[in-house]
């Protein structure tokens, strides 16, 4: 469960740091895959973990690579724990929980960029600033990519280029990230020379 090292990147690429326990009246923890390890470390570093756990809600899904640490997180003993089968399946629950969130709530997101981006978008939609949200990347670097042409989103993209799962165009993954869409941008790679598509390289694992 090593922390992910990213190559030098561009300005719209999110920057991730370690989760740090902050005083709060409520702690909403959202994680997937190897992000479970970041939650364990968060509590290990907390001054009063029992106090934190008493007002903590953990929502977790297995990672896109199959990593499932739900048992580890459940054993932490948070006031509420929920294992969703996928990120998409956890979003309605998060939206409901956020209806009751108020100032003093602390948000902790850990795992893949897809998880972090989509959870952050739900939280920001309620009016909490993105600066109120801590994010730690762990595990898979597969990307969530929006096709700039048809607007469809392809989940868990591993190769560059890849075929859009909606319109079928061959897309390269541009290093440009939208928090509002929670996705990187995919742009047709053979627009100028239709049919000339370079071999796909596994850039994200």
């Amino acid at each position, binding site marked *: 469960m090593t922390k992910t090292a990213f190559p030098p990147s*561009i*300005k719209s690429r999110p920057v991730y740091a370690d989760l740090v326990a902050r005083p709060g009246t409520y702690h909403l923890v959202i994680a997937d895959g190897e992000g479970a390890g970041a939650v364990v470390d968060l509590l290990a570093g907390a001054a009063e973990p029992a106090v934190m756990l008493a007002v903590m809600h953990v929502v977790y899904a297995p990672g896109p690579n199959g990593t499932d640490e739900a048992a580890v997180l459940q054993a932490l003993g948070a006031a509420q724990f929920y294992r969703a089968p996928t990120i998409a399946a956890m979003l309605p629950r998060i939206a409901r929980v956020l209806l009751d969130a108020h100032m003093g709530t602390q948000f902790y997101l850990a795992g893949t960029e897809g998880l972090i981006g989509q959870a952050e978008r739900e939280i920001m939609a309620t009016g909490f600033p993105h600066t109120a949200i801590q994010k730690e990347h762990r595990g898979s670097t597969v990307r969530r990519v929006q096709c700039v*042409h048809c607007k469809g989103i392809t989940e868990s993209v591993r190769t560059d280029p890849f075929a859009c799962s909606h319109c079928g165009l061959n897309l390269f993954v541009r290093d440009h990230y939208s928090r*509002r*869409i929670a996705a990187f*941008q995919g742009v047709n790679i053979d627009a*100028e*020379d*239709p049919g000339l598509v370079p071999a796909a390289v596994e850039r994200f694992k």
Partner: protein
Amino acid sequence: MALDIKPGAFADFFKDETFRDDFTFKNSPAAIRRFPFPFDRDDYMYSVNMEPHTPGKPGSVFENTFDVDEHYVAEMIDRAKVLAEDPLRCQSLPHMTLAGWDLLELIMESNARDYPQWFSLSKSGNQWHWINRPLGIDHRFTFLDESTLPYGPMEYISRQMQGDFSLQDEREGSLWMDAGMVTTQADWSLDFDVGMNFMEWHAPVPLAHEKHVFDRALKFLLKLQHGSPVRRFNWTMTVNPLLDTSPENYPKWGPTKTSLTQENLGHKQHLRVELQALFRLPRSNAIAFSIRAYLGKFEELVTVPKWGRRLHRVVRDIHPDIAAYKGFLRNRHMMVEWLAQHDDGAPTTPGFWPDL
């Protein structure tokens, strides 16, 4: 109530032309002489290059706050077509409506003052009466009451104005592009970028971050005062007079880049210049960014000898990363070959004016 365009008047000035399909767009000799040629020297590198947006030489594109030229009516018809095909080109996050009213006021007041033969605005309190004669619009509405307009205020006025617009909210020490009307863009997506801050939406630009261009530009813009707008140029290259070079439609226009030959290049290859102006808005404290695109065919631009010489030297010597970002690296050698015929090696005078 739709915004019905009923052009026809002033047909002696506003041209009936197209920016798609048969591409009948061209510049009159007068439009070529006033073309905003962006190179004030024989080479090019990114810079902040901002100056006060004050009235410039009569007849130039700087004469008025917003330049309305011979392509106005045709460009507005083209915009309506783009929006009908893709409504995502115009977006405004919910908190930006007041900034949209600020923009509407700025444009209506400026155009009624600068072009009284075409536009008029009369007010009785918040009861406003707007007449846009070239587009055949005569409309009474209540200022700050959205229900009296057929669109949101930003969309309503920018459907009547050449050039793209974006509206930036200021918070957390940055500018956030939270609204825009973008149908004549140099290959960037409003739908993807809306909601981003200044550093985020400029992220893909090469070289400039390392030169701290954006840090300095942002510091400068945060100090922008109401009543003291600023302007700058940007430029790129476009094959065919296509205003809508959007990433959304890239699979449609990308293949045209392979259509150039030495015989057709002068007619098909266009220098695309953006005259960008920034205005602090009074009620919302937002910043309006207008991005007005001018297209000049290579064969038109070289009728000004100084521009022919200079364009050759700039294209020949530009950093390949910039040529790649602007999307003309693959055709640069052909452009240089064509332009070389118009460069006799003579020195050029400083500044961008045509010297005719």
